[in-house]
């Protein structure tokens, strides 16, 4: 099996169109009254889906060895760890923990 998969033209074009449509949807949704924090959640879900399309079909992860996708998944995992541990500090700074 060759690692030189040639991504079909149809796939590239339809992925581009999907990305443009999703961009328009992202802007349109912005003008809808969605209560916080769900407006951020929706925006991030849309962005994540767009990023997935770019990763799978432009960057070729759909056709590549699965290990490359594993590397990408690990980077997200560590990014989440980064955010999570930081927020454990910053979100609780004024928690009124009584001082000894």
């Amino acid at each position, binding site marked *: 099996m*060759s*690692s*030189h998969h*040639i*991504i079909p*033209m149809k796939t*590239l*074009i339809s*992925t*581009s169109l999907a*990305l*443009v449509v999703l*961009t*328009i949807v*992202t*802007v349109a949704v*912005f003008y809808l009254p969605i209560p*916080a924090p769900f*407006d951020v959640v929706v*925006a*991030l879900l*849309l*962005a994540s889906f*767009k*990023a997935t399309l*770019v*990763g799978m079909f*432009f*960057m070729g992860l759909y056709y*590549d*060895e699965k*290990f*490359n996708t594993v*590397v*990408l998944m*690990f*980077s*997200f995992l*560590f*990014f989440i760890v*980064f*955010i999570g541990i*930081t*927020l454990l500090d*910053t*979100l609780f700074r004024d928690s009124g923990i009584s001082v000894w």
Partner: protein
Amino acid sequence: MAEAHSLENPRLQHHFRNADQQFSSSKLGMWLFLFTEIMFFGGLFVAYIVYRAWNPELFTMAASQLDTVLGAVNTVVLIGSSLTIALAIRAAQTDKQKQIVNYLLMTILLAGVFLVIKYFEYMHKFDLGIFPGAYYTFEGIDHPKANVFFSIYYMMTGLHGLHVVIGIGLMIWLVVRAKMGDYSSKWYTPVEMTGLYWHLVDIIWIFLFPLMYLIE
């Protein structure tokens, strides 16, 4: 043993079994580098998240200074540039030498459009006194921490813009080599690597756009 002979493919290095394994290894190496880039920008995203959690109303107020239309146009511009660089790789895979050059030039052009739009956005802000850090003098946002949003904005879009400039530099080099006929279906690894880098630059902007421009 015979398949590792360099006469078959002059680009084949002796420590790889065959050209295919070499290409796979290059891709894996590039993905590991992209991992570091994700952590690099990740640090700035963490700063964004922390400050937005601490000052939600500030972000809503300050984001109104950003032009949603220009941001959306830039998003579509980068999506287009991702398509054109994917087409450049395809041209190399199908031995269409002239197309490699043309698609790379289109990608550089679109990247340039992105930078021009950012230039006008920055100039408009400078006119208002919206400068990074200590140089901030804009009075139009009624919040004591207004400069913080823009420090984050300038850091993130600035670092991203720097990555765009680096990408343009890489692609100019690719155009020079492609014109010399260096790339073909036998070997086009630098084009593939630059493509992966460029798609990540696109992905980062795909997240930057809603987080900076679309805050209600």
